[in-house]
Each structure stands twice: as structure tokens, then as C-alpha cells.
């Protein structure tokens, strides 16, 4: 059953609020930096070096934490790693959406629910744990959704060949899996030492700036 639970969390058919978010692709396309499948691969590799270790680390932590942990503290530690308010809001919107869904599927820690709209990786990790998955599953899911959301948005916005995009997603999956493994090691240290500072704290200035600009546009197709 564990494998099925993890697959369920990986499935874009699960109502998780993610379909309306482009993972920064819409604003990057609008800025003229992304128009081809090759550009998309570069974009994804950039995300793997920056956002992915952060999200994967917090998802793994949430999978390892006890139910009565200080969830607010870890939630704030993730906020501190997301400079732009726009991306923090996007993370919370998706976290709240996923929480709404998984709270009806499995028991979810009360401390997490009390946050209302926790950051998405924390909900993803807690849900992975509740479904019987491992910290590596949680970290892998975080990376998978980061890549998959961007790929799906690029297909819808640019009309890219979905078969070519699938090949790109598979190609970056190898490095993505390695990032998930490293994130779990960091998460184990962070949870054991009860110290979020063991987790990755990397970001990409252009991504943050473009996200802030996107949030100020009156009309966009994606929420972020």
C-alpha cells in the first residue's frame, strides 16, 4: 500500500492546487528567457541547483518529524529561505490546497493543520509519512512536482512537443534523484539536532524577482 500512497501523492489527478501554478515558467516565458525545449531543460537544471534542495529538504523533514513537533518553527524556517512574498504566498496556497485534500485521506498532525496554510513541502512530507512513505519518497515527490509543474506549464504556454518535454523531464530526473538523496541526509541531521540551519538555503535572484513581477500583473494565466 505504501507504494500506492506515494504514487497517489505524485499523481497530478490528485486535487492539490498545483495545476494553476507554472513554477515560474509563465513569467520566465513572458520575460523572453524561455521559448524552446532546450531552454526548458536549462531552466529545470537551474531549479535543481537552487529551489529543489530547499523544497526537498523540508519535505523530508516533515516526513521525519513527530506529530507533536513545533511545526510553526519549521514553517518559518522555510519562509526564511523564500525571499519574495509572491513565492511564499504561492507555496502557502498550494500547501493549503493539498492539506485540504490529504486531511480527508489520512490523519495529519494537528500542529500542521493549525497553521492553516502551511508551506507546500511541509504538507507534502507530512502526507507522505501519513501514507506510509519514507523521507526519500517525500524529497523525491518535492523534486518531481517542481519539475512536473514547470514542464506541464511550458507545454500549455508554448505548445512544446509533450514527448520531447517528457524526455527532458526524464533526463533531469537522474540529477533530481541525487538532490533528493542529499536532501534526506541534511533533513536527518536537521531533525536529529532539532536545527533547521542544517537544511539547504539557496535561491535564484532572477526567479524571485520575476515571481514578484508576475504577482503584480493584473492578468496572468497561472497563479504563479
Amino acid at each position, binding site marked *: 500500500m505504501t507504494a500506492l500512497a506515494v504514487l497517489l501523492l505524485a499523481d497530478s489527478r490528485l486535487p492539490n492546487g498545483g495545476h*494553476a501554478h*507554472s513554477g515560474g515558467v509563465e513569467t520566465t516565458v513572458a520575460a523572453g528567457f524561455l521559448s524552446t525545449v532546450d531552454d526548458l531543460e536549462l531552466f529545470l537544471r537551474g531549479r535543481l541547483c537552487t529551489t529543489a534542495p530547499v523544497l526537498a529538504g523540508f519535505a523530508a523533514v516533515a516526513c521525519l518529524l513527530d506529530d507533536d513537533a513545533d511545526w510553526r518553527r519549521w514553517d518559518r524556517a522555510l519562509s526564511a529561505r523564500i525571499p519574495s512574498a509572491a513565492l511564499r504566498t504561492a507555496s502557502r496556497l498550494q500547501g493549503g490546497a493539498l*492539506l485540504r485534500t490529504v486531511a480527508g485521506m489520512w490523519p495529519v498532525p494537528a500542529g500542521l493543520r493549525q*497553521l492553516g496554510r502551511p508551506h507546500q513541502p511541509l504538507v507534502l512530507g507530512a502526507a507522505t509519512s501519513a501514507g506510509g512513505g519514507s523521507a526519500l519518497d517525500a524529497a523525491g515527490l518535492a523534486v518531481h512536482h517542481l519539475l512536473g509543474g514547470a514542464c506541464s506549464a511550458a507545454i500549455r504556454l508554448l505548445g512544446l512537443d509533450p514527448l520531447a518535454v517528457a524526455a527532458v523531464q526524464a533526463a533531469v530526473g537522474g540529477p533530481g534523484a541525487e538532490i533528493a538523496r542529499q536532501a534526506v541526509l541534511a533533513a536527518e541531521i536537521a531533525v536529529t539536532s532539532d536545527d533547521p540551519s542544517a537544511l539547504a538555503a539557496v535561491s535564484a535572484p532572477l526567479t524571485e524577482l520575476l515571481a514578484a513581477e508576475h504577482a503584480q500583473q493584473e492578468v496572468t494565466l497561472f497563479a504563479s
Partner: protein
Amino acid sequence: MHREETQTVLPAARPRGRALRIGIGGPVGGGKTALVAALCRALSTELSVVVVTNDIYTTEDADFLRRNGVLADERIRAVRTGCCPHTAIRDDITANLDEVEELERLHDPDLVLVESGGDNLTATFSYGLIDRQIFVVDVAGGDKVPRKGGPGVTRSDLLVINKIDLAELVGADLDVMRNDSAAQRGDRPTVLISLRAEHGVAPVLDWVRRSLTAHRA
């Protein structure tokens, strides 16, 4: 620096207020936004009405609602659907639920209108999001639309066939549309209207008022 964003606490699992939630869907250009505006104009003096729209692709659409809706800005919320309007009303309703519940919390409305983005004949609302749904098609789209069926035509709680004033101009036979709709829909009601006519929205208003009475019973 940016201040920390508000962590709004969500209500406990799936509350249903007293408000009646009505979804309005249908293909692009059929008159969904015009219907929402007409309903707001007619009802906002007697009822507390709020609107969640998924149909704002251009500032023109937003301005249209603001100009014609007779609703204060804070009673209108827009949800972006990432190029997939049907997903937001059927398969993943979470973003729309967030906005509906937020508006219900802020305004304690009698009526919530959820306007879908323009889609195709298969796009219908999940009843996890709304209580009743109206499907809007128009005469100018061709008089074969009701015969083609699809979940919007066959299963909606009210089928609105709009722009009957154009029937003659586009060579559409209203009797064909009326009969095909009846055949597809059984006992479910269909109204043929022109929102451009004076009191054109009246048959829809009657249905909304009856639905509200039934909902409160």
C-alpha cells in the same frame, strides 16, 4: 523587505454555509459574464451576492464585471486556472473552494456565483464546489449544439440558450434547439433568452429564486 504573509486559518473540514452556490459554465462567447452581470444587477438589491470568476483573461473582462455587475470590488474574486478552466471547476476545485469560503466568511452572502472560464461542451462543475449549475450556450454557435449533447447540455440543472435575437441572422431554428434540448435533458429545465432584451434575464432569475427557496427549505 517583505513582511511575512498572513497565514489565514482555514475553516474546519468542508463547511457549508447557508449560501446557495451556483456554477455558471459554457463555451467561450455564450454570455456567461453577461449573465453574471445581469443576475448581479437584478439581485444585489434584495440579496447579498458574491462572485468568483475564472473567466478573467484580459483586463477588459474584469472591467466589464466591475462596470456592469453593480457589485463592490471586494465581492468579486478572480481565480487563475493555468490554461485549464475545466480542471479548476471539476477535477481540482481547491483554489475555487478557497475563494468561495473566503467570500462566505467575509460577506455571509445569500448567493455565490462561480463563473467558469469558457470551455467546451464537456466542461461541468463538480458538486463538491457548487449546489446547482447553469450551462450557457448561444444561438450563434449553431442550432445543432443541443443535439450534440455532452455533460453540460444533458446534466446541467438549467440550460440557457442565449442570443435568440440572432436566430434569424444566423439561420438557427429555435424550435429545433428547444426540442433537441428537451430530448437530451428529460425533466431538466431549458430557457431560451436574449440577455440584450429588456428583462431578458427574467426566466433565469425565476429559476435562481426558486432554487434559493428550495435550498433554504
